[in-house]
């Protein structure tokens, strides 16, 4: 009996994954548990194990192929079992929706193992993996295609600035320039060099372009020309945590995400106190040269956003705070340190479950994927150090009540009623004109647990703010 090898869901909001490398060639024997292939999502690269022992055949998702979650990527036949010409499942008509991505910019090292795949495999994959209609190849001009081809760039990773998101040559030029700029330096700490000179730094995820600057900033152009949204994540999170909210907000506006220092793709820095962390974020915000922005922050990022709004009041059209820090002394310091300490999914998962109103929402896969983006011990150490400085003895060591009181822009505070990390009653310290939205069935991460509800509040806020600024 042939075993179907499917693309697993390793991420809560994952819809598809890129098969980035095969470790076993078609026709070769494989044992259950062997590393079979690698996938990449927006968040991480991950090794997938063989679900059965036998002979690997019918690789219908060759390297560089984007495959929807749950679709077959290959088959494993039991030793001695006859291998049919075509993959089971009726061939082309029921072929999985696998889309060969154009010339991907994969690391050569990763692809090495399968460079000599038998020709048969390729033929089979062509015959049985028709291009999925729902994910057409990127819209790009001939000039952009030629430039990308020459530079070895994957167009699927670019954001087009032309009509209907068409990628034009200038978009490719910008990407090439961004790649050529030196990796962000980490002036203070001696150790980060090792981390930032990884042989294969994660490229900006599909649909996001990267901007030069001290902190990692990623932005995605919107269809419309509305005021952009700037998102600031919380402690031990990173820009990818916004994915559910981004989806709920739609792509009408440009979205700009900042990775805080010692987080995500930003450099590791020696941070003395909250002001030091905020200063870097303000610099990153200034570097965006925006004429106006809607600022949204979660938890520690809420405190940072409040600081930016306080310092740059004329640029801020509205401030949206999701379970913001800095409005009271209480905080679940154990969870913060637990997350920052965890070196494997087993120790991370229990703490992550404390973030959500429904612990079951944090699946094992979710914890594993979260751990994959936290594999860097130096980053974890930097975050532990940061936690000790910002939240000494499990107490919020900074108070932004005064700063928030000075914010005159339209202001909404969103809090989960079941928040176990920061008590929602801190919201009562917001100024008169703040609107408060207490979401049921939400813990400390309402933007992940209830993204639609958060998006609705924020969209209302943006509308009110823009009407006010016009009036």
């Amino acid at each position: 009996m042939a075993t179907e090898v499917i693309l697993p869901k390793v991420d809560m909001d994952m819809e598809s994954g890129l098969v980035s490398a095969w470790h076993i060639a078609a026709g070769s024997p494989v044992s259950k548990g062997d590393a079979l292939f690698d996938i990449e999502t927006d968040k991480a690269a991950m090794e997938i194990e063989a679900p059965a022992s036998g002979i690997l055949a019918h690789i219908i998702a060759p390297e560089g192929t984007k495959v929807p979650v749950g679709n077959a990527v290959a088959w494993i036949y039991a030793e001695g079992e006859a291998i049919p010409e075509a993959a089971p499942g009726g061939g082309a008509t029921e072929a999985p929706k696998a889309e060969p991505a154009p010339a991907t910019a994969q690391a050569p090292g990763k692809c090495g193992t399968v460079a000599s795949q038998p020709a048969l495999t390729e033929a089979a994959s062509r015959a049985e993996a028709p291009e999925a209609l729902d994910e057409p190849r990127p819209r790009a001009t001939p000039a952009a295609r030629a430039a990308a081809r020459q530079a070895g760039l994957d167009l699927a990773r670019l954001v087009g600035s032309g009509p209907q998101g068409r990628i034009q040559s200038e978009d490719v030029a910008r990407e090439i320039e961004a790649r050529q700029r030196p990796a962000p330096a980490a002036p203070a700490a001696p150790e980060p060099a090792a981390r930032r000179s990884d042989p294969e730094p994660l490229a900006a995820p599909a649909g996001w372009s990267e901007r030069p600057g001290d902190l990692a900033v990623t932005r995605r152009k919107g269809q419309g020309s509305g005021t952009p949204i700037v998102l600031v994540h919380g402690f031990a999170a990173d820009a990818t945590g916004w994915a559910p909210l981004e989806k709920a907000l739609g792509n009408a506006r440009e979205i700009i995400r900042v990775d805080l220092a010692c987080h995500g793709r930003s450099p590791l820095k020696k941070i003395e106190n909250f002001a030091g962390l905020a200063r870097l974020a303000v610099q990153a915000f200034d570097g965006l040269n925006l004429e106006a922005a809607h600022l949204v922050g979660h938890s520690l990022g809420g405190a940072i956003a409040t600081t930016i709004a306080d310092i740059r009041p004329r640029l801020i059209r509205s401030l949206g705070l999701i379970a913001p820090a800095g409005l009271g002394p209480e905080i679940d310091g154990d969870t913060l340190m637990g997350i920052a300490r965890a070196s494997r999914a087993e120790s991370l998962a229990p703490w992550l479950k404390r973030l959500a109103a429904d612990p079951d929402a944090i699946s094992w896969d979710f914890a594993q994927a979260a751990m994959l983006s936290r594999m860097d011990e130096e980053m974890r150490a930097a975050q532990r150090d940061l936690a000790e400085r910002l939240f000494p003895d499990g107490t919020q060591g900074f108070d932004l009540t005064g700063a928030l009181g000075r914010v005159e822009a339209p202001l909404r505070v969103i809090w989960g009623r079941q928040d176990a990390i920061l008590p929602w009653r801190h919201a009562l310290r917001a100024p008169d004109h703040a609107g408060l939205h207490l979401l049921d069935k939400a813990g400390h991460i309402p933007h992940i647990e209830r993204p639609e509800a958060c998006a609705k509040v924020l969209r209302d806020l943006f509308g009110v703010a823009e009407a006010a600024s016009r009036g």
Partner: protein
Amino acid sequence: MNAPTRNPEIQTRELSYAEAIREAMGMALARDERVILMGEDIGVYGGAFQVTGDLVERFGPDRVRDTPISELGGAGVAVGAALTGLRPIFEFQFSDFATLAMEQIVNQAAKMRYMLGGEASVPLVFRMPAGSGTGAAAQHSQSFEAWFGHVPGLKVLQPSTPEDAKGLLLAALEDPDPVVVFEHKLLYKLKGHVPDGWYTTPIGKAAVRREGRDLTIVASAIMVHRALAAAEKLAEEGIDVEVIDLRSVRPIDHETIIASVRKTGRLICVYEGVRTLGIGAEISAMIAESEAFDYLDAPILRLGGVEAPIPYNPELEKAAVPQAPDIEAAARKLARKEV
């Protein structure tokens, strides 16, 4: 126009487009006795648009021959005269009436050299007043360049300046095969510097009338002037337009257009003939097939005549073919990457 390329040692005078054509014909009549002019009312009347003017007085009715009101008959005689050793220049009153003479132009003049294995040739020039803008309505305002451009064996020219009107007509006369020259009626009064003496403008060679970085406009005849006017306006907005004067519809100067599109990555074709299956279609396809394809950074645009006969109403007549503001708007959109 064309000032930067003019050789200061060559004497020029200001002549109108019509005067430049007349000068060319007069020089040809004086220099080569095989040259004759034929056409309806080109003698005493001086031509429907007064292009032949006083030539009948200078060269006599034998060499400046009025023909009866039969385009087919007149064109047939001209083909026969060319086949038997003369160098006729045949004028149609309006290019629209050339439809009556298609048999002679397409089936006879264009085919003879091929069908007789190169034993014979038809050195004949057809002059065709063309285009809209004179209030002459549907049967007197058409632009048939693409029609004739579709016929192997013909060469098809569209001068846009007095200098080229003379130079291309003399080049057509020197050519051993039939050449159709479309003269835009609105250009007859256009003045410009015209060199003295005998000179030819090469057939099949476009002219870059304005250099620019941001996009290329390929235009012909009066559209060259409209494109230049649009380019001037756009320059104030910082949009740098290159304008190419096609000059020759058949053969088309691939090299110049390809080089320009490789530079700018954006192309608009502007022509007065009906947009569909027109000159712009040919240029667009030529670019798509060329090495310039990989340099295209936006779709190619075509501005051409509407899919209707030219109306009599003057406002509708203007609206039926590209005007400078139309070109300006299209180029602005293309330059701003809104296309």
